[in-house]
């Protein structure tokens, strides 16, 4: 895709050697703590200050509270061109971590959804199994279709006498092609819907098992 940066993600060169921790969504969508209830300040003020790039460090570094509600609708309304990334004028935020060498490493909890999110080998297997199951279903529907619709003209071509057979005064080909195909289509469609939903349920059970 030709670079068409959105307002929220401007292309910005980053300094070498420092790994910036971006406020990202916290900041972008952080309008939940912007509006009036925060010390009587109006959201409009925040917007003004943001556009002047003089947000105090206090504000900029305020960590996101877990479970904080972030209204996306509001974020859209207050989003300002060029400020989505963080404090441009202020100092770069740097992640500081302690290695905690002494502590015993806790075995990480690896959920299936995380495996899939992080595109690990295990996640790959789960995703592929879903894809394979659904594709197999889809292709079997097409195979049934090909068998039913595809062979009928051939049968007529090979056994032309079928064309002269009449059922309820209507010639057989008219009944076969004009009427009986439709219930078949509906039946196959019904089967596919049920089977596809079952495959999805199985996948959901695996992902949500943890």
């Amino acid at each position, binding site marked *: *895709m030709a670079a068409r940066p*959105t307002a929220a993600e401007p292309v910005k060169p980053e300094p070498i050697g420092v790994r910036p921790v971006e406020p990202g969504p916290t900041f972008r969508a952080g309008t939940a703590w912007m509006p009036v209830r925060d010390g009587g300040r109006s959201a409009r003020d925040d917007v003004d200050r943001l556009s002047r790039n003089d947000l105090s460090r206090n504000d900029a570094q305020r960590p996101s509270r877990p*479970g904080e509600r972030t209204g996306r609708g509001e974020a859209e309304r207050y989003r300002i061109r060029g400020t989505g990334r963080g404090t441009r004028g202020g100092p770069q935020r740097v992640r500081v971590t302690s290695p905690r060498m002494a502590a015993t490493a806790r075995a990480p909890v690896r959920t299936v959804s995380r495996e899939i999110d992080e595109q690990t080998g295990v996640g790959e297997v789960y995703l592929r199994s879903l894809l394979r199951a659904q594709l197999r279903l889809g292709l079997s529907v097409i195979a049934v279709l090909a068998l039913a619709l595809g062979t009928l003209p051939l049968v*007529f071509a090979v056994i032309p006498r079928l064309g002269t057979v009449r059922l309820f005064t209507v010639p057989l*080909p008219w009944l076969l092609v004009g009427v009986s195909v439709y219930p078949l289509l509906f039946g196959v469609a019904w089967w596919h819907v049920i089977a596809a939903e079952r495959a999805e349920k199985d996948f959901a059970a695996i992902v949500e098992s943890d």
Partner: protein
Amino acid sequence: MVNPNPVTWPQIASVVLVCVATVAVGAIGLRLSRTTSDFYVASRVVSPRSNAFAICGEYLSAASFLGVAGLILAFGVDILWYPVGYAAGYLVLLALVAAPLRRSGAYTLPDFAEIRLQSQLVRRIASLLVVGIGWLYLLPQFQGAGLALRTVTGAPKWVGALVVALVVLLNVVAGGMRSITIVQAFQFWLKLTAIALPVALLTLAWMADGRPDPGSAGLPVARTTTTVRLPDSVTLTVDRPILVTVHGWVDGRRVDGPVELPQGRVVLRAETQVTLEKGQPVPHVAEIQASTGKAWDAPNSGAGGRDHPLYRLYSLLLALLFGTMGLPHVLVRFYTNPDGRAARRTTLVVIGLLGLFYVFPPFYGAMGRVYGPDLLMTGRTDAVVLLLPERMLPGIWGLLLSALVTAGAFAAFLSTSSGLTVSVAGVLSQDLLRGRFRASVRGFRLGAVIAIGIPTALSLLALRTSIADTVGLAFAVAASTFFPLLALGIWWRRLTRAGAVAGLLAGGTLASGAVTYTIVAGSSHGMLAALLAQPAAWTVPTAFAVMIGVSLATRRTVPASATRIMVRLHAPEALDLDRGDTRTDARRERRGETRNDGRGDGRGEATQALPR
């Protein structure tokens, strides 16, 4: 056909009624839904069943309502595969794309191309194709409208096309019919009633008439003394010398009175009036070969002069089965489903409803063989559905049923062309117009004018293909371009931008070249003509091969987001997974994670989770 019955007001009234009802409900809907968000919120409460009514309302076009019966009258049992293909296309759509497409969040085909491949170029090409396919599909709608109005009222051909174009334009410019599920659902029920109800009464009339066999041996003969006025100049094939009464020009000579038409070809000038006596074999326009009832009744017989019937049949089936998913006005309706599961269930209902509808049109084609063989003389067999009621039922019942089928036909023109116009106009303003017309209301209105204007103008030219054939060509282009894009985009992770571009260009160029040739040159004979008239059998595999081949050659450029998008397309919505879309941000925040965009180049590449 000289109108034997000068009473035309019921038909005109029904046309006016359908047009006024469409505009009125459109205007009410405009008042009800003002903003985009209204529409989206409303869309969440649309159940699969009402959504399916709306899809069928939009899908059943002039080709289904008029075209199928007309082709059956001329070519016989092989044409039954047309409606089978129209319905079975939804089964393929269900099996391969319905749920993933809904989950992709794409509103149009270009949207899907961009989401999947992150490429503006692919999007641009997809937009051009949407406009081309939309025009190709709109063309026969206006063609049919002109024919219908002339058949029932004798008005010139351009009147009907203009009426439909204006009503659609009014509707679309005023607010769009898109959001109004109820209008489309109403049009579906109107069409189903208009095609099914007359069948019951006409069957009774047929039985009372001694059950004449449409497939009886020999050539079709005039059932009563019939007078035909030719709207255009035609070349007729006369199978047996016949004595007819002519007022007009035969082979360049002025004739007023009885004249023997010799065996072979005869050229009759426009406005010539020909009277056939009862029991005389009906001469055919040269494009349709005379066929006996036996050939007409037998599968793969090439009745009506279509050679290579088996190739044509398979190629047509391929186009219809795989082209449905690439029709611009079909996809948009899937977006109104709340989720992928509902999209599947909607498709299931659609397949049931279409199957119900398509049982009826062949009846008109078969009866037309008995009661309207003179249509073979004008070549306007598409009019058979409109003419039959009055021919078979004299008096008020015939008149009322004729008004009903006319209303159904206009519902077909209006609903399909409205849906197509909205899709084409949207794509024009989003992707192809520039400056202040880009993605604005003004741009959408200009887009609507362009979207309608060009096919209306083209429909006034003397086109040489029938309604159902032109629609078949639109399907062929869609199957050669969007089918590979959707199938590979949804099921194959290694599709690359270069592969998609090359495949779309290859399929699009080949198919539209064949289509243009067929529309301009008309039907002719020989294998080459068959290959060009039904191109899908060779253009679809070519497009697939090119798309796969180029993707494999450029395998290093597989978009980094491919796996994320696959999760989005295939995982049920209820699962809490990273789909690389806006919902993902909210989800990460819920988890207290921060997002690290890697190089942060704003390209929407796959996001990497922080090392923990």
